[in-house]
């Protein structure tokens, strides 16, 4: 279902954009041919294993690898001593220390050493023979513990940034951010209703099904080729080089197919270890994580604590909001507290607010991006309170949001003015959807929530080649994580006016195409797509020139229509792409063009969602019985894969709301590092997810594209919690809404919060 905004721009008569052909990489992926990170095998390849800290916080006093090295078949062992002293800015240095520990381990799973051997069994034997002595230190596991006076410090020299004057003593608070507008006292004085609550969420993992994997082949000339599954092989090259102390160009990174990432595969874990092991062993080395390693040592999303106070007047206008937010960073600074703060109030035009956010280190794995990083946690608090305000005022929750919704030209809480956005359209799409007025059954409740995400632009490169048969190859460097090859091919087919099947899109390695930033920030169809379109247009300009040369007419008299050059007055027989390609030797040689850009014109994304749940009053179990999401896609290039992004984001959000959490033992080790005990949604937990694509074209992109990957995960936490509140009469403020928690709330109330 598509809702057109402006017929002048949404009905341009595209032939390919907006259709649903089979993805170009589909056949490989349904027949088992596609090669993911762990699937590569090279002649002479060794298998590696990684030794990880069993402690949440400890000083390494010694590492003895003598016994391990003497085991037959062990070819290389590395520790922190095999890497140069961390250099660069503080973030780079933290990345180096996170890749492999030096003096201290800061979380269970922190890398201590790694082994390459002739088999995985021998490598694991060697790991067991490495003797590490630790001085175990006290640990801090939550923002409350870490921010308490006298808390154990993870980093002895960390002075909180963003506080003026700067603190004189170190703490676990890495930084503070503040966003504000107006006069808070006046805003609350104007309010007729005020709601004040505290919300918490636990760490959750991106949960990609493919564990991290890397193969490295380091040659005696000091260069290394790395095959790995990531969201951006150029980033893998840059980050690995930093850890190794190399120039990036010494590394060639070849992208494997990627088995899910959701932000978690935008950084390095195994890559520099594999390179160094391969260098020491003189043979290729493969490292593959087990699922427990993925949970313990790769980036979950931050746990959060958000205190919020929000007021509104009887007219239904939000007058003031005050937020205090602390996000767990894990062992090194870098939570998405900035994005969480900036997005928190972004859907609403609020005259008076302050948002104060803190990035707090704890003895857990260093958090990493997870789909709209930082936004779901703050939206959980804001959208829960918005819901409560609407109910207290007796206003329909969609009408309340419409009353306060931001529009083009309004200033975002984080500074700039909104360009053309489709928030209101998503709210209206939900309000007008049959779901919104459908009757509910016993023990059922309905919740709505909205969400915002910036979307990103960043750097992309593309090369377009015309082949000798007149077909087209589109080369980019953006790993295809969910159908982007299809989007690139559709846009190229549209540009050339040729059939989709005549375009072959591929993802090239770091030496075969210009630089590309990661597949993240919902940016690929926008930014890499823009590079593809620009390269296509350069090629078409060239093709017109060749036709003009052939006909001996000025190029202005040649236009490109439906895959062929035509003379404006029809005086020449048209020249097809295939005909021009066939004769390229006579018109200037092979035909290709490249485009590189730092994408501008990013279009912000909004989503509004509605969910019905049924809560079992005897067990506290919550079943999602109906779900509808409406999201502004700008323009859906391949609607099926846009729907897929909407649906996937929603379901990850449902998992976050209902099931998922890291559970820690008292000693700071993780109690549930498996998919059995860390329960992501399965098919039988869910209904169909009705995905409504709203199209308010983004004027900043040739086809009106907005990023669609991320914003879908922002509303579900609150949408589900609002539905549970409606079903039970209790307002839950701590996630996940697991059966014991919900049952306790039903039996004893939740007002203790």
């Amino acid at each position, binding site marked *: 279902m598509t809702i057109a905004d402006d017929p002048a721009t949404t009905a341009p008569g595209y032939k390919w954009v907006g259709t649903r052909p089979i993805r170009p990489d589909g056949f490989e*992926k349904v027949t*088992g*041919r596609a090669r993911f990170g*762990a699937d590569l095998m090279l002649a002479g390849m060794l298998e590696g294993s990684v030794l990880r800290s069993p402690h949440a916080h400890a000083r390494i006093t010694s590492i003895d690898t003598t016994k391990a090295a003497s085991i037959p078949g062990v070819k290389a062992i590395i520790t922190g001593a095999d890497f140069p002293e961390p250099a660069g800015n503080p973030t780079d240095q933290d990345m180096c220390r996170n890749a492999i520990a030096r003096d201290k381990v800061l979380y269970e799973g922190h890398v201590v050493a790694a082994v390459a051997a002739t088999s995985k069994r021998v490598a694991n034997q060697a790991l067991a023979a490495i003797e590490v002595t630790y001085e175990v230190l006290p640990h801090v596991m939550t923002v409350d513990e870490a921010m308490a006076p006298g808390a154990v410090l993870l980093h002895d020299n960390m002075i909180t940034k963003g506080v003026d004057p700067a603190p004189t003593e170190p703490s676990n608070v890495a930084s503070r951010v503040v966003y504000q507008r107006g006069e808070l006292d006046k805003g609350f004085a104007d309010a007729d209703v005020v709601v004040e609550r505290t919300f918490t969420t636990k760490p959750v993992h991106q949960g990609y*099904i493919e564990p991290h994997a890397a193969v490295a082949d380091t040659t005696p000339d000091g260069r290394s080729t790395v095959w790995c599954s990531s969201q951006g092989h150029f980033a893998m090259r840059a980050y690995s080089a930093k850890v190794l102390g190399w120039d990036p160009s010494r590394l060639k990174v070849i992208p494997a197919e990627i088995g899910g990432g959701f932000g978690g595969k935008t950084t390095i874990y195994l890559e520099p270890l594999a390179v160094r092991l391969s260098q020491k062993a003189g043979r290729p080395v493969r490292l593959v994580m087990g*699922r427990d390693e993925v949970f313990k040592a790769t980036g979950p999303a931050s746990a959060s604590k958000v205190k919020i106070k929000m007021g509104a007047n009887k007219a239904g206008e939000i007058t003031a909001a005050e937020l205090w937010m602390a996000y767990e960073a894990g062992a090194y600074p870098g939570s998405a507290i900035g994005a969480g703060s900036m997005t928190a109030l972004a859907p609403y035009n609020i005259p008076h607010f302050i948002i104060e956010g803190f990035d707090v280190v704890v003895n857990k794995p260093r958090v990493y991006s997870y789909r709209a990083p930082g936004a779901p946690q703050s939206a959980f608090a804001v959208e829960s309170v918005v819901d409560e305000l609407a109910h207290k005022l007796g206003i329909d929750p969609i009408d309340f949001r419409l009353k306060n919704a931001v529009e083009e030209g309004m200033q975002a809480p984080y500074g700039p003015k909104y360009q053309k956005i489709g928030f209101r359209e998503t709210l209206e799409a939900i309000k007008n959807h049959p779901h919104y007025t459908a009757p509910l059954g016993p023990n059922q409740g309905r919740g709505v929530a909205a969400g915002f995400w910036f979307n990103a632009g960043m750097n992309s490169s593309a090369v377009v080649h015309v082949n000798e048969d007149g077909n087209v190859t589109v080369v980019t460097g953006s790993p295809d994580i969910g159908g982007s090859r299809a989007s690139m091919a559709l846009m190229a087919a549209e540009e050339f006016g040729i059939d989709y099947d005549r375009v072959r899109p591929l993802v090239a390695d770091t030496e075969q195409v210009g630089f590309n930033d990661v597949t993240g920030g919902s940016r690929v169809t926008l930014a890499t797509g823009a590079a593809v379109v620009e390269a296509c247009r350069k090629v078409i300009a060239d093709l017109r020139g060749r036709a003009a040369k052939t006909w001996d007419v000025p190029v202005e008299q040649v236009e490109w229509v439906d895959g062929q050059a035509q003379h404006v007055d029809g005086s020449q027989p048209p020249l097809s792409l295939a005909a021009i390609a066939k004769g390229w030797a006579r018109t200037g040689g092979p035909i290709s063009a490249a485009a590189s850009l730092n994408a501008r014109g990013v279009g912000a994304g909004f989503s509004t969602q509605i969910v019905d749940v049924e809560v079992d009053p005897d067990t506290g179990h919550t079943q999602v019985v109906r779900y509808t999401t409406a999201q502004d896609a700008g323009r859906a290039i391949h609607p099926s894969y846009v729907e897929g992004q909407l649906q996937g984001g929603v379901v990850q959000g449902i998992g976050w709301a209902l099931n998922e959490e890291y559970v820690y033992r008292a000693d700071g080790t993780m109690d549930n590092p498996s998919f059995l005990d860390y329960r992501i949604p399965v098919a*039988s937990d869910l209904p*169909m997810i009705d995905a409504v694509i709203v199209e308010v074209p983004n004027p900043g992109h040739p086809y009106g594209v907005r990023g669609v990957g991320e914003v879908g995960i922002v509303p579900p936490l609150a949408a589900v919690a609002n539905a549970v509140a409606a079903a039970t009469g209790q307002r839950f403020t701590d996630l996940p809404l697991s059966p014991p928690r919900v049952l306790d709330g039903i039996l004893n109330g939740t007002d203790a919060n």
Partner: protein
Amino acid sequence: MARRLINCTINGDPTDFLVEDGDSLLDALRNEVGLTGVKEGCGTGDCGACSVLLNDRVTCSCLVFAPEAEGATITTVEGLADGDHLHPLQECFLEGAALQCGVCTPGFLVAAKALLDHNPNPTETEVRFGLAGNLCRCTGYDKIVRAVLEAAAQMREANV
């Protein structure tokens, strides 16, 4: 460590390979036979990415010792298509965009084949429970369930 020679039938072909007693069938299929379409997502039987048909039963190959394959008949994702003629499930997954990253897809296809072999006319609920042992983190399952229902309909029609 001494290795043991295992003889079995994989995707219709008589196949032999050497394993250590502690090896999983998953490791043997991937590393000894070269069938890397069988994926490891967890190694503990929780994600279903390594699903194969072992004597016609859908099985997590990570939970089976490789020597247990002696004399068995095994089908992996590589054995679903008939030459270049895709299985209806494969066709419907492609047509229905039922994969995003594609790493869980081999396990889903194998599990769905087992489901339809036993129940050619499943309800949506039966498909959801039949595939509850397979994790997908990208799609939210919507398009997977639709693809399986569509494939079931096409297969019933073809068999009429």
